[in-house]
């Protein structure tokens, strides 16, 4: 009887959507990129927080440009916007941190602390504050956030290890984690502007052409914003960024561009578009330009293509 009531109670009152969101947030925080992708492939997410986690995971695995349109993308699924009302989700700053935009990551960690109900000092935001201050060589403030963490059960060891590194530039720079994170920083200063985050990504790439996550984000940003001029400009550094073949989403965009121009743009020269992509865009074009457009069929057959996003999303 009790079990029946429990099951009924959970079924009726359980907030499963929030649980899904929190799971994605936690997995992103733990940097469990493969787990995120696995979970999304099993049941595609449909909320902005989970999508931001998924896109980050795909970029970290260099699969964003290949698989991003297998999922329900929107113009704001790479970065979560700045909300002055309500609690700032933990994940808001995560893409900035993983990309190397540490000041912005710090800003959102502080906003999460500030906006947490009753100011209960979320430990992961404290950790993020400490991390960004260590990367920025602001050790006195890092210490302020590390001290409380050093008195917790689960973060004690990590915090004490960080405290032992503070002010030791040589050890931090040669550290396998901190050294690599520092390399991602932009060499140029600019200002936070949610509406022009492509500029931030370009600064990151100019500072460090090896920042592959930034490159994947930049190209995804152009595709989501349907900005083909900048997308083509981005293609021109594909080879030096290690892309000898265009990933699927780029191929689909390139195939579409090719249909709109009399000549193939020079940036695409030397890259081949796969035959199946060429065949698919022909089929898509037929359905799209049919006298009586069957959107249900288009979605069913081409819902996981860039073309569908281009014509039917936002």
């Amino acid at each position, binding site marked *: 009887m009790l079990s029946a009531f429990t099951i009924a109670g959970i079924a009726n009152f359980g907030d499963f959507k929030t649980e899904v969101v929190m799971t994605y947030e936690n997995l992103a925080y733990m940097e469990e990129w493969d787990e995120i992708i696995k979970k999304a492939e099993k049941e595609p997410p449909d909320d902005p927080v989970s999508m931001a986690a998924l896109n980050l995971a795909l970029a970290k695995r260099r699969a964003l440009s290949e698989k991003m349109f297998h999922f329900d993308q929107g113009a704001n699924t790479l970065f979560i916007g700045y909300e002055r009302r309500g609690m700032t989700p933990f994940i808001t700053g995560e893409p900035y941190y993983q990309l190397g935009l540490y000041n912005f990551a710090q800003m959102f960690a502080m*906003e999460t602390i500030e906006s947490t109900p009753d100011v209960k000092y979320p430990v992961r935001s404290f950790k993020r504050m400490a991390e960004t201050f260590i990367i920025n060589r*602001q050790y*006195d*403030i890092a210490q302020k956030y590390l001290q409380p963490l050093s008195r917790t059960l689960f973060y004690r060891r990590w915090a004490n290890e960080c405290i032992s590194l503070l002010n030791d530039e040589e050890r931090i720079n040669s550290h396998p984690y901190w050294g690599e994170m520092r390399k991602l920083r932009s060499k140029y200063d600019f200002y*936070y502007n949610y509406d022009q985050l492509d500029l931030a990504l370009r600064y990151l790439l100019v500072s460090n052409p090896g920042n592959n996550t930034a490159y994947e984000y930049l190209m995804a940003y152009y595709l989501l914003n349907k900005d083909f001029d900048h997308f083509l400009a981005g293609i021109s550094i594909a080879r030096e960024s290690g892309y000898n073949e265009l990933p699927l989403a780029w191929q689909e965009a390139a195939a579409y561009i090719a249909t709109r121009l009399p000549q193939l743009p020079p940036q695409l020269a030397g890259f081949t578009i796969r035959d199946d992509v060429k065949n698919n865009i022909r089929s898509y074009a037929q359905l799209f330009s049919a006298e009586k457009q069957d959107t249900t069929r288009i979605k069913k057959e081409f819902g996981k293509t860039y073309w569908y996003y281009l014509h039917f999303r936002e």
Partner: protein
Amino acid sequence: MKKISTIILIMSVLIISCQQNGIKIEKDINRTPSIFPDYKDVTIPYNIAPLNFRVEEEGDELHVTVTGKGQKTELNFRDNKVLFREKKWSRLLKNNSGNDLEISLRVRHKDTMKVYRPFRIHVSGEQADDYLVYRLIMPGFQNWNQMGIYQRSLESFKEETVIDSRVLPGTCMNCHSFAMNDPENMVFHLRESYGGTILYRNGLLEKLNTKAGKMFGNAAFPAWHPSGNYIAFSINRMNQIFHATGPHRAAAIDMQSDMFVYDIERNEMLTSPVLSSGENFETFPCFSPDGSTLYYCSAQAVKMPEKFNTIKYSLCSVSFDQMTGRLGEKADTLVSGRELNKSISIPRISPDGRFLMFNVSDYGCFPAYNPEADLWLFDLESGDYRPLEILNSDNVDSWHSWSLNSRWTAFSSRRDDGLYSNIYLAFIDEKGTAHKPFILPQKDPSFYDTFLFSFNVPEFIKSGIRTDIYEIEKVAKKTPAVQVMSESGH
């Protein structure tokens, strides 16, 4: 051989004489102990709370000797914190007003006792005001959840809430200001939820809607006229920008600003072309203690936000007739920002009318985000001005206020870690010479290591604020705001 024997004999005598109960005593440490907060050689008012401190030397026991005028006090502590009892400390300071206290420290670590060179604390015969009022807020960006305005008794560690976000959730509260350090004349603003300006005057509380006539916004930075009959306000359209790299995390940009003088009796906002010119930004008003001059900062308007880091504010003044509320027609420039190649903000005049303390930064008018922001002093008698080197640090030093007797300043500084603002106090003598500043003492010397709020806008007041938090809450929430009118042309 005889020489060696003599040396051995002397060494043995020395070793024996320097050991007590098996403890080796090291007397030749030619330095003062390292302590936090740094209270060494500071000048303090005789009505300040105990300067408890932490000794940052390795040790298991502390032996402290405080020597004052005809008085020696011995204190022993088991850990590294020196904690004075409030009543004893208060007596000690009053007995030594105008004299020095000598603090000697012996620190035992295992079987060694280190004897450090003593340091001094100068107890001034000049009293500081009884209370400090400040805002506590996390050093965030745009969000806030918890903040408040508090009053702290300087003589003790007692802090009381004036107003906070527990009673006014979702409300930003700022810019508390008093007429000549008098808590009976207080003003501060509420933004967002329950927005309005709270005016407390002669025991009456009211809420104002200060956006009158053609004003482009609500009243912002206030400055009371010494008579308590007027309040000058700037009206600012502020934006924030956030840097991608480096320690300069943000900048506040004044996109547009003007100034108005609020005539409290008439409930009118008075203005003048001098203070509301389209070609210039005007901000940070400050009345002279005789009430005849209004000081403020002004800069030629530039394209914002593009040129935000080139704008240089000057220190200006304009005459003010307190009988009619009329402002002069011509402004004077006392210090030109362009000529100084710096930007001036927050002018504050000592109540004796002798000195004007102001902030100097590389650009702009919101020094809280400019690490180079320093405090300067303008001698209104001689016209000379200079940086107050001893008060300034490598980080932001700003938002200063004067005690009623003009001998103490309280200011906020980010010197301790670069992010959190703490309050520092300093003695300024009658010649304008500043003495070494010291941090607002707290009961636990480790308080600042873990406290996660910034102290904003420290303001001295001569006695405690009488109005109750719940009275303010009632007025903020339930009383309709009084609409301030624009000038009727009297």
